[in-house]
């Protein structure tokens, strides 16, 4: 079975380490905040200018001056800091954020990512995505492995305009967890009940399959 959005968030959350500063993109990455393991403290960065994003506010806490990068009303957790957008992108571009999680349309075996523009469709903008992928050493890309029509999104070469070049080293899809290394995808884990054959079939880019590919488990959560 392909992973649900929640399971994808759970799997990404296992990559969090105590003391990490983390930027979570919109969509599945946002859900990762719901699965932070016990005993691990992470500080969430919101690129409009908030380090230490808290929960959504109660009705009483609601404040129009307190929003996240998705423009949702939020709170600041104890120990948070608030600053300008220039300061925020200084920490992003300067490589100070420990982990960035974001979605994509396509990723390729060279670590290129396309996530902001489909020619011929309405272009809304890249927001902070280009800065995030250019600045982070440690990025996990979350996406479905293939389109609804079965076309692979893990490619030899991205077809859509890029968000960043050579910057992605880890991908979690609904079928598999992969690393990108030396111009190839390396299959590290597969979703429960998903065969290596299916992943091979749905990966258009060069794929290295180790002898043993463990299955992800979710029962403990």
């Amino acid at each position: 079975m392909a992973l649900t959005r929640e399971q994808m968030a759970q799997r990404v959350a296992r990559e969090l380490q105590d003391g990490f500063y983390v930027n979570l993109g919109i969509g599945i990455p946002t859900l990762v905040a719901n699965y932070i393991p016990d005993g691990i403290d992470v500080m969430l960065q919101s690129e409009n200018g908030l380090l230490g994003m808290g929960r959504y506010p109660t009705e009483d806490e609601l404040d129009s001056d307190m929003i996240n990068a998705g423009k949702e009303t939020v709170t600041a957790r104890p120990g948070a800091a608030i600053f300008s957008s220039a300061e925020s992108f200084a920490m992003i571009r300067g490589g100070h954020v420990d982990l960035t999680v974001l979605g994509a349309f396509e990723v390729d075996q060279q670590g290129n990512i396309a996530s902001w523009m489909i020619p011929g469709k309405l272009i809304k903008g890249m927001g902070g995505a280009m800065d995030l992928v250019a600045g982070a050493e440690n990025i996990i890309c979350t996406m479905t492995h293939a389109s609804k029509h079965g076309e692979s999104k893990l490619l030899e070469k991205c077809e859509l305009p890029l968000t960043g070049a050579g910057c992605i080293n880890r991908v979690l899809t609904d079928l598999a967890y992969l690393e990108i290394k030396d111009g190839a995808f390396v299959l590290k884990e597969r979703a429960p009940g998903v065969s290596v054959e299916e992943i091979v079939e749905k990966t258009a880019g060069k794929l290295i399959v180790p002898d043993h590919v463990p299955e992800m488990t979710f029962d403990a959560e």
Partner: protein
Amino acid sequence: MAGFDKRVASYEEAMEGIESGMTVIAGGFGLCGIPENLIAEIKRRGVNDLTVVSNNCGVDGFGLGILLEDRQISKILASYVGENALFEKQMLNDEIEVVLTPQGTLAEKMRAGGAGIPAFYTATGYGTPIGDGKEVREFNGRHYILEEAIIGDFAIVKGWKADRYGNVMYRHTAQNFNPMAATAGKITVVEVEEIVEPGELEPSQIHTPGIYVDRIIQGTFEKRIEKRTVRS
């Protein structure tokens, strides 16, 4: 106005001198921390052919979105313009030129403009359509593109508290682009919720020192929420 007193008496006076064809840098992120009354004054004046520099372009009927109604904006530099039907229509009809600019690059363009730095190298956008036609240089084995600074004829800014010398503090995440915008205007106009006497603001807590500010005005604000998310 006398000495360092930057206060003006009306919004009309606050935007005096704005003309068609000018570049206006606006603070704000989404609808958070936007100079909503200064935008309304630009609408009232009917100036057009404006180049606007702002992370977003408001929504239909609020914020910078109201300047689209009479086609006052001919060009915009923004990182994300997705929440606005009128904007999409004008963009698809080529009635407005859109220069999509990565958010951090946009912030840095304003910061550099205000700081006397004409251009800067950044890795953001290298290898993407944003880097097309821009100078590339390699530093320590990595590629960077040259991005130019921005200076506005006007910068319009939303603060929380200011003293009459134009020292400004922002509230929570309404800070966003406002401090950079404030530095990058040939004429910088700041509207705030409260103007206090000099000495009432703690000097070390001031975000925008008054040297950057030409005019300040106290206003009342709707502060509309774009996405109301609450927990029960």
